[in-house]
């Protein structure tokens, strides 16, 4: 049995509010009808509603009078200043971030370059060279050898005027009369001949060759030729 089938009490009327006939009050038609009936039969609630009607009029008037009330302009000005400050701070923060970014990128690039250089140096030191370069005397000098010794290299290419038949005098060398000297066989890069003053084809400068070096008694190289192999090549 629904409570609205019985007459509405003053308490229930109060719960519906004084403006029970307001469309948005969320009351059903039955509830509205019950409230109207209660209002007709209860002088106390009717008097209250009448008082409320008068007060509601004043509230509406107050609402009308203050409808255009606005926050004073100084508040807007202060807030605009705050927003401008936010923009300024943000602008500088952005520039700071860009500058820091550039600095970090530059630092990283420098570190990378230094690292690569150091790595290259360390790799060059650590890497076992397949054959010692001729320019390094302690490694290449194996003692005087006869030209008939078999060379370990397989090179037969000629460098400039260098041949297997004749010694080519090294420019600027001063042969000592009566000194036969010694022949030292060594493995070297063709480009190292350039350091002795011989013409070198740059395209073949990296090529490893075995040469017979005619060395005088004072240790100075006097002439050079391509070494002969045991098979005569």
């Amino acid at each position, binding site marked *: 049995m629904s409570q609205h089938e019985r007459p509405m009490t003053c308490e229930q009327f109060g719960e519906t509010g004084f403006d029970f006939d307001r469309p948005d009050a969320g009351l059903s038609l039955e509830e509205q009808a019950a409230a109207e009936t209660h209002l007709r039969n209860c002088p106390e609630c009717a008097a209250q509603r009448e008082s409320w009607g008068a007060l509601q009029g*004043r509230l509406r008037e*107050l*609402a009308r*009078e*203050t409808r255009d*009330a606005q*926050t004073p302009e100084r508040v807007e000005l202060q*807030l605009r200043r705050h927003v401008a400050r936010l*923009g300024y701070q943000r602008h500088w923060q952005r520039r700071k971030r860009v500058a820091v970014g550039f600095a970090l990128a530059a630092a990283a690039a420098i570190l990378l370059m230094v690292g690569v250089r150091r790595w290259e140096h360390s790799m060059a030191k650590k890497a076992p060279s397949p054959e010692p370069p001729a320019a390094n005397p302690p490694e290449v000098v194996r003692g005087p050898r006869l030209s008939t010794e078999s060379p370990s290299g397989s090179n037969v290419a000629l460098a400039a005027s260098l041949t297997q038949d004749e010694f080519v005098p090294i420019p600027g060398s001063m042969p000592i009369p009566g000194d036969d000297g010694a022949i030292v066989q060594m493995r070297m890069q063709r480009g190292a001949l350039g350091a002795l003053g011989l013409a070198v084809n740059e395209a073949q400068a990296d090529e490893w060759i075995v040469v017979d070096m005619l060395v005088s008694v004072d240790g100075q190289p006097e002439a050079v030729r391509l070494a002969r192999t045991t098979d005569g090549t």
Partner: protein
Amino acid sequence: MQTELNAREDDLLRRAVQGDEQAFLLIYRAHQATLYRYALRMTGRTWAAEELVQEVFLTLFRESARFDPARGPLGAFLFGIVRNHVRKHLDRSPAEVPLDDGGELPAAAHPVAQAKLSPLANPAGWTEHRQKFAQLERAMLEIPEEFREAIVLCDLEELSYEEAAKLLNCPIGTVRSRLHRGRALLMARMEFLREQPRKAVAR
């Protein structure tokens, strides 16, 4: 449609927080009056309302990330902020009752006094007009906050019960009940202020 509006407000808010003054003004001018009136009617003081509105927007800038357009419009979010600030303000100064002339500000600065009637053109009419509202405003300030809030939203801001319920985050029945009790208390208070004893029962 509403989602689009919310998304637009979200975009404006993001721009405002980044320092875009135009975006800020669009938000501010759309919402300041509602917030100000609510704060003014809840505190009864123009200086407090002014301060609260300013604080609301500063809070908005600080906590803009909390605004989620999917959960509702920016207006409701701002109302939540102003409501919190008003509550804090009233907690700090519960015993203060404004003077009949509208508080510390000169009477002419009060919104009611600024409307229509000029004190110079018709001083007697202006005084009567002013007193009529001063009594009502004073009675409003003397009823508990939750009932006053319902009256402010439904009777002064003229929101529907549903809109008020959404803003207050409570069921419509609660709004209706608070309104009833608030109105009964307000009537009783008005009777008392008029010194006309009458039975106005607040149940």
